[in-house]
């Protein structure tokens, strides 16, 4: 009876991206104590190679999609899309990290190993088709990111960020896990498709109320992970205290993966009780957008501002979830890809400008950047315009598809309020633009260092991505549309 447990070679190949990343990360761990400090850049180079290899593998294994390991993993279009997104986020995080780690004189081996482990976790999350597997992926990703958030051990703010991230992250995990336990108890399975059948079958007796409770508990857990209101309190402190490249990573990678499992769980297993959870998501989406945008208006610290903006953007994606349709899922997928590009790009500029010890983090420190380093300023403008949602950028089409999906699902009020919110958001992004181009250079802009090759790539690649998504959104959206059908 156990012979079916032995995976076939096809199943092993479907797991290839995770295998590559795990092997390389473990190798880093072994090499770190052996290699000296002079080889500190080697880890970064190999990280990028490993991530490129994993991305190629992720695309390659999609030629033969299907389940793996007794249905625990499901390599489909959705998984492939998010695998590519989180691995891409990894590459875009490694690139600015070279300069950052040199500047702060931090160790590189452990940093890159942790980063790769975190990405492995996210790949497992987005591929998993089973709640325990999702939990394990979530924890691999989270535990590595807790350490990354506090990577600068002697920095008071980084410690505090790590502690807050850790405490609230584990708290959220416990909620998620309790939901898993209840689902297991009510349906006898943790496989999403089986859970769905059990809910549809109606053979649960008095269980529906517990299914509802389980959905609510998972909603709380995942709400924390995507930093949606009212579970967003940790985000500003964590993003502000964490090293800037790590903050960029946290706001894109783990968040994209968390949204992926959010969509997969709620639109597969809990799809039959959709009308029950839709109001929850509706309220959370509106609260995230409003809270994020209005709090961002008053921020003077740029990392904190971007944190609140990331809460608001989580709200937009929750609108897509509230639409409960394939169009909505496709819109959310597109948005997460666009958001990853523009947000990581913006954080990379912040990392570049802030200088050693992250001294220059005020919005005023952007004064005169346009005169001192026109290239950097132009790229930041692209990211900011995309965050606002100006046409010809990825952010525009992301928002457009999300609100279109919401209208298709008759969420008129949510759409109207969301659009009003985007108008409010434009103000604080424009404030940075005005600073850059219309003010005299301040201390920060005068002391800015020339761009290193790594940083240049970390700025140009996301900008290209943002523009490609904004000018030719069709291909990505087509793919997202085709792979957004969970239940056939």
């Amino acid at each position, binding site marked *: 009876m156990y012979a079916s447990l032995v995976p076939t070679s096809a199943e092993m190949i479907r797991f290839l991206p995770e295998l590559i990343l795990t092997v390389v990360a*473990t190798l880093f761990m072994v090499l770190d104590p052996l290699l000296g400090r002079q080889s500190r850049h080697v880890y970064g180079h190999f990280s990028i190679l490993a991530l490129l290899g994993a991305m190629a593998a992720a695309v390659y294994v999609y030629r033969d999609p299907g389940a793996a390991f007794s249905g625990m993993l499901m390599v489909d279009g959705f998984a492939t899309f998010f695998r590519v997104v989180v691995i891409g986020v990894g590459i875009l995080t490694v690139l600015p990290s070279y300069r950052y780690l040199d500047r702060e004189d931090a160790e590189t081996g452990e940093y890159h190993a942790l980063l790769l482990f975190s990405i492995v976790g996210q790949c497992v999350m987005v591929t998993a088709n089973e709640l325990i597997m999702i939990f394990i992926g979530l924890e691999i990703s989270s535990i590595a990111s807790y350490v990354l958030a506090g990577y600068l051990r002697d920095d008071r703010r980084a410690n505090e960020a790590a502690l807050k991230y850790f405490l609230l992250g584990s708290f959220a995990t416990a909620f998620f896990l309790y939901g898993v336990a209840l689902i297991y108890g009510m349906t006898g399975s943790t496989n999403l498709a089986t859970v769905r059948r059990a809910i549809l079958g109606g053979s649960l007796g008095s269980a529906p109320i517990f299914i509802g409770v389980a959905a609510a508990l998972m909603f709380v857990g995942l709400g924390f992970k995507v930093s949606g209101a009212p579970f967003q309190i940790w985000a500003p402190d964590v993003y502000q205290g964490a090293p800037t490249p790590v903050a960029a990573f946290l706001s894109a990678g783990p968040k994209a993966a968390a949204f992926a499992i959010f969509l997969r769980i709620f639109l597969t297993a809990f799809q039959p009780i959709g009308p029950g959870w839709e109001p929850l998501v509706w309220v959370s989406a509106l609260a995230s957008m409003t809270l994020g945008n209005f709090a961002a208006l008053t921020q003077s610290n740029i990392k904190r501002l971007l944190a609140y903006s990331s809460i608001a953007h989580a709200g937009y994606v929750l609108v897509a979830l509230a639409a409960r349709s394939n169009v909505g899922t496709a819109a959310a997928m597109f948005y997460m890809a666009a958001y990853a590009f523009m947000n990581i790009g913006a954080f990379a500029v912040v990392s570049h400008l802030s200088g050693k010890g992250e001294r220059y983090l005020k919005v005023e420190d952007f004064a005169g950047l346009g005169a001192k380093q026109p290239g950097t300023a132009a790229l930041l403008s692209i990211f900011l315009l995309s965050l606002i949602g100006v046409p010809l950028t990825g952010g525009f089409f992301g928002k457009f598809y999300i609100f279109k999906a919401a209208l298709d699902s008759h969420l008129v009020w949510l759409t109207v309020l969301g659009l009003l919110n985007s108008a409010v958001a434009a103000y604080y992004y424009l404030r940075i633009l005005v600073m850059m181009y219309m003010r005299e250079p301040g201390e920060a802009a005068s002391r800015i260092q020339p761009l290193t090759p790594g940083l240049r790539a970390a700025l140009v690649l996301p900008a290209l991505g943002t523009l490609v998504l904004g000018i030719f959104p069709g291909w990505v959206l087509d793919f997202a549309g085709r792979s957004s059908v969970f239940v056939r």
Partner: protein
Amino acid sequence: MPTSYAETYFPVLLQAVIAMAVAAGMLGASYLLGKRVRNRVKDMPYECGIEPTGSARERFSVKFYLVGMLFILFDIEAIFLYPWAVVYRELKMFAFLEMLVFIVLILSGFFYIWKKGALDWGETGERRFRKP
């Protein structure tokens, strides 16, 4: 055969009652029969007959904690050996290879902490661990 739920647990209740009675009896008997002498020596904490030195609330080196933590981690990984051992015969070579992979992963973690000096208690280890 006991039938009801309460009956099943009656022996447990009985045992709890007896245990409490014995404890109370011994304490009570020594209270009633024993004679009480109080002096400084008698109020001291008992440490196998050796005179206690210093306060018990000392700060410990963080290395105790480190070793404790590492012990828990490696200890709990061993938990996976049990389900593995149950299905080992059915899965044959595959199970063996999988466990080999698992052990290699754990060993690489062990190698890491060892080389980083987390297990060294001497001067060198301390210096290496606090390197940066």
